[in-house]
């Protein structure tokens, strides 16, 4: 009898803990797989949403650990924003399998596929892993193009409006403000990078193709011989020759990529290694999507400007 009472109390206490967490806020709980998507969600949701990103800004978004705490986060989510181009294929499926949250099941209004409506580049015509880690739906690093961010923002606003119709007008007006800000910032970024149109750049991974397309850079090569394959000396030797031939003077790296490899190549080619993380929060002070692009533009401007 006493034991039953104890169990009852314990059960109530446990439910209480969960309940308290649930009632603490009436905001929509939005989970984004990566911090860039989270930042756009904050712009659109404003104070009506509480946004959490699963991947850390400094870690490789292809290789995030499927930590059990993420299961709890997803279990309580009202919406999930995923890239939608298989960037999270290695870690999101087992989390969703255990999250038991119908609100974020595929096809539900709470499941936001960021890439919907974006014309992805490099969609493979055949699937062959001897070509490296190719994503079957196309290159997933589209967020670094501000125009892609507008499409993502539209997807987020439309879904938030479906889940929370009474605040749909707010989401739409936040979307309009976000779009206006992107338009004015994009003009500014294009002005800043205009002198370097046609500049040759080198990247570590194939993760800046959308940026290159938007701002008119030409990517000479990647330090990785194939996507996801570690740089080999023979490939790096080839990159060095190409850089000298094409007069490429910058190498773009993200925080989780091997900067030492990039520095070695830079020494051989008198190039500069630029720290250009694609996730807000990776550089102190750069907490929003706009800060993140600002930083990349500034880095490129400084790096390419110094070479002039």
């Amino acid at each position, binding site marked *: 009898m006493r034991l039953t009472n104890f169990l009852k109390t314990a059960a109530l206490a*446990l*439910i209480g*803990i*969960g*309940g308290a*967490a649930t009632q603490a806020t009436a905001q929509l709980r939005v989970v984004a797989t990566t911090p860039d998507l989270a930042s756009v969600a904050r712009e659109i949701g404003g104070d009506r949403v509480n946004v959490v990103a699963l991947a*850390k800004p*400094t*870690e*490789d978004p*292809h*290789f995030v*650990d*499927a*930590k*059990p*705490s993420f*299961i*709890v986060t997803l*279990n309580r989510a009202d919406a999930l924003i995923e890239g*939608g181009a*298989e960037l999270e*294929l*290695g*870690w*999101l*499926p*087992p989390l969703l*399998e*255990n999250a*038991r949250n*119908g*609100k974020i*099941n*595929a*096809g*539900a*209004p*709470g499941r936001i*596929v960021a890439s919907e409506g974006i014309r992805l580049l490099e969609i493979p015509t055949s699937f062959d*892993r001897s070509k490296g*880690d190719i994503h*079957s*739906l196309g290159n997933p690093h589209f967020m670094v193009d501000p125009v892609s961010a507008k499409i993502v923002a539209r997807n987020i606003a439309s879904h938030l*409006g*479906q889940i929370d*119709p009474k605040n*749909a007008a707010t989401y739409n007006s936040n979307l309009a403000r976000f779009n206006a800000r992107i338009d004015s910032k994009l003009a500014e970024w294009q002005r800043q990078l205009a002198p370097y149109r046609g500049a040759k750049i080198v990247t570590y991974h194939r993760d800046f193709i959308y940026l290159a397309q938007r701002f008119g850079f030409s990517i000479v090569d990647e330090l990785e011989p194939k996507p*996801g*394959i*570690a740089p080999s000396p023979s490939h790096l030797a080839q990159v060095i020759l190409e850089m000298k031939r094409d007069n490429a003077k910058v190498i773009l790296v993200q*925080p*989780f*990529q*091997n900067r030492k490899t990039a520095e070695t190549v830079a020494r051989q080619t008198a190039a500069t290694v630029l720290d250009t993380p694609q996730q807000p929060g990776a550089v102190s002070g750069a907490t929003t999507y706009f800060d993140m692009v600002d930083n990349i533009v500034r880095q490129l401007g400084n790096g390419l400007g110094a070479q002039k």
Partner: protein
Amino acid sequence: MYSRQSKTALAHFARAIRNSRIRFCLLVCAASFAAPGIARAQVKPPKSKQDSIARADSIARADSIALVKQLEKELGASGADTSAAASSQGPRATGSYMNIGFVALTDAGWSTAPDIGAIERGDHDPHVNGFTIPNAEISLDGNVDPYFKGFSNIVLKIDSAGDTGIELEEAYGLTTSLPANLQIKFGQFFTEFGRQNPQHPHAWSFLDAPLVLVRMFGPDGLRSQGVRFSYLLPTSFYTEALVTVANATGGTTSSFRSPDSPEIHGGVIDDRRVQHASDLLIAPRINTSFDLTETQTVVLGASAAFGPNNSGPSAKTQIYGADLYWKWKAAAAEAGFPFLSLQSEALWRHYGAAQRVSEANPAVILPSEVLKDDGAYAQVLWGIKPRIVAGLRGEFARGNQSAFLSELRRDQSRWSPNFTWYPTEFSKIRVQYNYDNRKAIGTDHSLWFQLEFLIGAHAAHKF
């Protein structure tokens, strides 16, 4: 307009149900297979409503959500998930209804042990000097419909005589839309006991199975036909409670009613039919996890397995286990490196052997006794730099004195340093040294190499 008509029709339907016995049946349905049963009842009339959801504007959508909420209330079904219907679009269009993968392991090496099978008892361990193909596995999985996922692993392996064996390692369905944080798995599957038992060999960090797991669960791990219930607790940190109910009979229920059990208890098998619930295998487990810091996570688990054994008509076995996993991964990790992890499991078994006729000599009666075994392993992995991992495992397993001297209960220990290079996440090259020590037999040295390749879909790894 349509939605108003269907609202009225459904209201009648709901009223009819409220006043009849059908309601009771429905509630029972809801308790066992709630989402499919109830959700289908709701979905049927609004099948085209589902289409209209896609088309209608947000006001109409709000309306339909309110309607479903109202029906849930009237039908007495709590939270039978409104989005299950919407999820019928299935996964993203990657061009296939089913993921197909194939993974093959090749072992090669040499051991000083004359009886390698006695120190490498696992079915997926190397068995002979020279080459072994311990595991070639076809994995299939996919969404069945909005309510279930399906999984299957079919394993082919070549034994020490060179003959190919096939086994249906796993074939199970998993619910995807049950309410109240519940989940049910059903079919043939690895029992969720501890950390490593449910893992497939290609996910192991060492080339062979830990001694204690093989002792308690047999060469193939503990798996059987049954059902597993799981509940994700509403706590602020991850806590999952699971219970498996399964058949206790067969070659993969080693400590229970396996045809190989005489190797443990030495007696003639008491063959009886399943008559009571207590003739089934019951395996509860609780699993919890905390993020200690931004870069450190710990997972703690406790498991048990209770069931009959075949040494006598009412003989029982109990197994208890505790497991720990801790991992640190650098905040700016490249391809998941560097990292450091510790995994450990300890198990205790009480095998209640009944008074039994010796299998070797029918004139001998073996006394009633409790066969007590325990053991543990601990393994540290250091992901030094991208795709390179160094590991060290220490382990032991031991058993108490008994009337029948079982080779499977001999005291033994092992140290295994290893080194693995993953050219990509689809291939693996591993070298492992084993220092084995068996009581009254002595020590042995083994050096094994392992190569692995994986083609097709790659199931993501759990933490």
